[in-house]
């Protein structure tokens, strides 16, 4: 008998679905659906009470309509009615509707919670499972609040049915993920860990997901799971394929559970207990041995299941990174898979090898597969696999094979899929930089990159090559020669023109001796590309021209002629026009000395993390580039930059990361020469803004009851603030907005607590963001101070502000009934636990405003607690790392006298006092 009988459906539903399927056009379908929606709506709204069957039918129709992509905004009430029914069919469809069309309407959630509560206590396993499913599917905070206490009890109770235990484990996991603060494992920890020993494999399967997640968050508390997991794994691995009956999948005993056990072990270092470790190594060896045995079945499912375990075992071996013997076996196994006929296995082998390549024991072993991997990159039909091959080449690259790998990647780029080109370009650029021994190779590689895949070369890549050329004088001549040759090509990419213009502008003199690349030839070559380029490139070329005038006085008249032409000096683009006018003027009035100073060669760039690496990290997300690799990149990058120690301190060079060429920041000469700084400030900046400008500072007390707003504003700078708090942790975003049109340089902020540095430069009109992570260690009364310094024009600006971090930000609201409130109030009766203030109202005594402020404070506002409805009472717990401080508050307004009496009681005297002070300023 089929488990689902097909005869017993709903006729109306079947007819409706057939109608939809017979619709000839999208319009007809929409029309039919709208008709049905109207029909259902009227049925739901109608006076006639619907029976369970009709409700179920309509809800099914809504589900179907939803699947087709139409918005469903009603029917939730009917679904709630259904799930409160005692009939299984109705209950089930009601829960299904709610799970698929989750709605955050809290009124509704309250009703649903009620029904769930009933079902959980019904002792009917089917109903309990339905309820647990619903919680796991919706997983909202309200549900966590209602059930986080109950579910662990169901999970570990001795009389709970296995199927309910399974559901309870995953339900708890879901709640833990959404609201970890509400799920307190404490007393349950050891009983949950012991579920690994449960008789029922299904219970273990569900529980292991829960335990893995909990172990990741609290490894120490769950440490005992390691030995239990090892013994469970060992029992499975050594069992015959018939021992586990239904959990044997195509002759492999419990593959899913084995994978999960191996994943759990990856949360921990190798076991310290010798016996446990021995047993585990034995398991891993058995798994590796089984891979060499002949298959028990020819079905792909059999090999899939077997290899799923094998790959997890290899991951664990790589994770431990301590057993050279196992590592070599793992590497050999993966080597076999690299040439396997199953594409899936080749894909996974390449992926695993990538992690293996970073282990010092196996790096060399991985390198022996280089030819196979290169071949995969060239011949695989599947782009997913080719991408993994490229990743692996990147991971196995070191000094010994860098030239080969970079060459292969470059040649692959010519035919690479568009989807992975940009990433490939970044990888080539990074490898070339990281492993460059001679810089002519590096320059060649990058120029090749621009030639082959110019469109995918991001700004970071060509910025970087220029930085390196500027910082290394031994490569400058070669670079000038190479770009000159590259520019000879009839069609060359705009990025090539940029690099060419910049390098010839700086170092064209190094090749000017050769008549084939005389100054005028160089200029004509560059200028022949001018008209095909975009505005930013043209702007860059104009700067190169003015540099030519300085380098080669003989080109002066030719270049002045070009600058003077209408197409430059009257160009419709303001930037180009301005440059043409200014450069023309500069070249005609400035003496050669001034010209030489203003147009001096660029100073070396300050050393920093390669921006390309940062870009790749951003693209691939954290984790894609290992920390290890990053540090290495930094070190190597430092070496690269090391050549340039010729004067030029970083404070006077224009900020490197924001704008390498000063292209976007007005005329580049402003930024170009530090020695001419004072002169140029007079010319180009609107001088005379200094710190006696009146400003608007917003007192920190305004932020007691709110988290977002403008913290500070004057004519120059606006500081916005956005913050969020959770338990004893907070995160604050500060937005520094430059209100002027001129950049702020050497912008620094210092805080008497730890903070990430902020971008040192803010462009005119731009905004930068700073994130501050806050942890409340213990209660406090002084807010952290933020000191801001920057240069605007020539003048140093200095500001000190109080950050609006106050103790109340770490409140967790606590709901309690009147009875509880007064009981706790009485418990806190020591004189120093109470702080009281009577003060005059500063604002109108509007109830709604007061309520909003009290809510903003972070405590729970308790209704119907105080016998006098005019009064407000609140309760909350302040979360600090050291302790939790329960606090109660009572505010008694006296409208006639326009006075308030505020009473705060908490378990800590300093907290009561501080809260009272803070709040007295608010009303």
């Amino acid at each position: 008998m089929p488990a689902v009988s097909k005869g017993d459906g709903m006729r109306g539903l079947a007819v409706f679905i057939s109608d939809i399927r017979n619709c000839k056009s999208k319009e007809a379908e929409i029309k039919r659906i709208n008709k049905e929606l109207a029909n259902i709506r009227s049925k739901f709204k109608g006076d006639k009470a619907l029976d369970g069957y009709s409700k179920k039918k309509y809800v099914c129709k809504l589900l179907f309509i939803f699947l087709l992509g139409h918005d469903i905004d009603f029917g939730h009430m009917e679904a709630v009615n259904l799930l409160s029914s005692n009939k299984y069919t109705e209950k089930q469809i009601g829960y299904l509707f709610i799970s698929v069309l989750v709605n955050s309407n809290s009124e509704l959630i309250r009703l649903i919670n009620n029904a769930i509560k009933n079902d959980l206590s019904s002792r009917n396993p089917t109903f309990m499972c339905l309820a647990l499913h619903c919680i796991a599917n919706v997983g909202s905070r309200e549900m966590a609040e209602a059930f986080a206490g109950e579910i662990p009890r169901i999970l570990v109770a001795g009389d709970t049915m296995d199927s309910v235990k399974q559901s309870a484990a995953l339900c708890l996991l879901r709640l833990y993920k959404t609201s970890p603060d509400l799920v307190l494992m404490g007393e349950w920890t050891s009983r949950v860990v012991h579920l690994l020993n449960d008789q029922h494999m299904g219970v273990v399967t569900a529980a292991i997901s829960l335990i893995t997640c909990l172990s990741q968050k609290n490894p120490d508390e769950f440490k005992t799971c390691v030995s239990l997991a090892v013994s469970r794994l060992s029992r499975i691995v050594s069992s015959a394929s018939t021992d586990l009956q239904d959990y044997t999948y195509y002759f492999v005993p419990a593959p899913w559970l084995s994978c999960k056990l191996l994943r759990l072990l990856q949360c921990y270092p190798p076991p310290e207990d010798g016996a446990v470790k021995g047993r585990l190594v034995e398991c891993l060896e058995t798994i590796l041995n089984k891979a060499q045995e002949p298959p028990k079945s020819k079905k792909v499912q059999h090999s899939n299941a077997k290899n799923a375990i094998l790959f997890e075992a290899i991951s664990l071996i790589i994770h431990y990174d301590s057993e050279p013997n196992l590592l070599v076996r793992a590497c050999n196994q993966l080597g076999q898979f690299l040439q396997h006929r199953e594409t899936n296995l080749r894909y996974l082998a390449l992926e695993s090898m990538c992690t293996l390549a970073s282990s010092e024991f196996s790096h060399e072993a991985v390198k022996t597969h280089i030819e196979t991997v290169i071949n995969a990159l060239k011949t695989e039909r599947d782009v997913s696999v080719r991408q993994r091959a490229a990743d692996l080449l990147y991971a196995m690259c070191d000094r010994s094979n860098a030239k080969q790998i970079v060459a292969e990647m470059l040649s692959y780029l010519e035919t690479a899929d568009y989807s992975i080109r940009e990433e490939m370009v970044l990888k080539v650029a990074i490898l070339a930089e990281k492993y460059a021994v001679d810089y002519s190779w590096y320059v060649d590689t990058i120029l090749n990159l621009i030639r082959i895949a110019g469109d995918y070369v991001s700004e970071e890549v060509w910025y970087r090559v220029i930085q390196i050329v500027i910082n290394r004088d031994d490569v400058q001549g070669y670079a000038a020669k190479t770009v000159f040759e590259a520019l000879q090509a009839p069609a060359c990419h705009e990025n090539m023109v940029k690099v060419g213009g910049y390098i010839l502008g700086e170092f064209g003199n190094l090749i000017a001796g050769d008549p084939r690349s005389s100054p005028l030839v160089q200029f004509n070559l560059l200028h022949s590309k001018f008209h095909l380029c975009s505005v930013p490139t043209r702007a860059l070329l104009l700067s190169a021209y003015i540099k030519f005038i300085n380098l080669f006085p003989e080109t002066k008249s030719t270049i002045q002629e070009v600058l003077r032409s209408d197409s430059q000096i009257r160009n419709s683009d303001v930037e180009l026009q301005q440059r043409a006018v200014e450069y023309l003027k500069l070249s005609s009035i400035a003496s050669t000395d001034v010209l030489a100073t203003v147009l001096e060669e660029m100073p070396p760039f300050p050393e920093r993390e390669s921006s390309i690496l940062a870009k790749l990290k951003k693209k691939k997300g954290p984790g894609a580039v290992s920390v290890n690799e990053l540090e290495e990149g930094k070190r190597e990058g430092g070496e690269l930059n090391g050549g340039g120690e010729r004067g030029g301190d970083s404070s006077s060079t224009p900020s490197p990361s924001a704008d390498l060429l000063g292209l976007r920041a007005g005329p580049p000469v402003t930024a170009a020469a530090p020695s001419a700084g004072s002169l140029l400030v007079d010319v180009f900046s609107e001088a005379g803004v200094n710190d006696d400008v009146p400003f608007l500072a917003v007192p920190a007390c305004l932020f007691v009851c709110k988290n977002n707003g403008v913290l500070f504003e004057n004519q120059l700078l606006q500081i916005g603030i956005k913050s969020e708090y959770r338990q004893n942790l907070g995160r604050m975003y500060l937005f520094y907005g430059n209100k002027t049109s001129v950049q702020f340089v050497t912008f620094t902020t210092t805080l008497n607590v730890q903070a990430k540095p902020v971008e040192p430069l803010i462009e005119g009109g731009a905004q930068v963001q700073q994130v501050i992570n806050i942890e409340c260690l213990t209660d406090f009364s002084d807010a952290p101070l933020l000191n801001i310094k920057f240069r605007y024009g020539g003048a140093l600006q200095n500001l000190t502000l109080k950050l609006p971090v106050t103790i109340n930000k770490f409140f967790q609201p606590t709901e309690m009934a009147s009875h509880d409130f007064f009981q706790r109030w009485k418990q806190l009766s020591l004189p120093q636990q109470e702080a009281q203030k009577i003060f005059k109202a500063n604002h109108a005594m509007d109830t709604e405003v007061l309520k909003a402020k009290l809510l903003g404070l972070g405590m729970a506002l308790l209704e119907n607690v105080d016998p006098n409805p005019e009064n407000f009472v609140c309760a909350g717990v302040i979360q600090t790392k050291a302790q939790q401080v329960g606090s109660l508050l009572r505010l008694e307004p006296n409208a006639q006298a326009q006075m308030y009496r505020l009473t705060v009681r908490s378990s800590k005297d300093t907290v009561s006092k501080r809260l009272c002070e803070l709040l007295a300023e608010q009303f």
Partner: protein
Amino acid sequence: MIKAILIFNNHGKPRMSKFYEHYTEDTEQQIIRETFHLVSKRDENVCNFLEGGLLIGGSENKLIYRHYATLYFVFCVDSSESELGILDLIQVFVETLDKCFENVCELDLIFHLDKVHNILAEMVMGGMVLETNMSEIITQVEAQGKMEKSETLTLLFIWQSMRQSQASRFSSKIS
């Protein structure tokens, strides 16, 4: 964790979708379309894994899929899941559907969407795997069927005639 389970046919018509993270209805539809676009352009015999579309988290997530006759079964998972394990899970799901519906075909999914959801709920809950043992799953589904039987009257429909006209069964491809 499993982020989403999508079933659509060769033309991209969704036949079932289940998301284990909250998205707006609009985004859900876009994810289905994007996923169909990514998966359907792939040849047969290439590997069963690819990086997720941008809407569902890009390269953080993987799409693991199988193609059975007219239907694609796609699981979108994060890096904590074993790729081959998920392939097995898809197989268990399809084999279970096949047993529950006796030679399952696309029409079964269309007309019994609620049942498909119920069967899936016996395997996956909140994005985590609840049970992988097929006979256990079927026992649960059968028990539900019995309860249903005892509660509702049997009605017969046009369903059967329609079902006979459906030619393409994908069950032949299952094993």
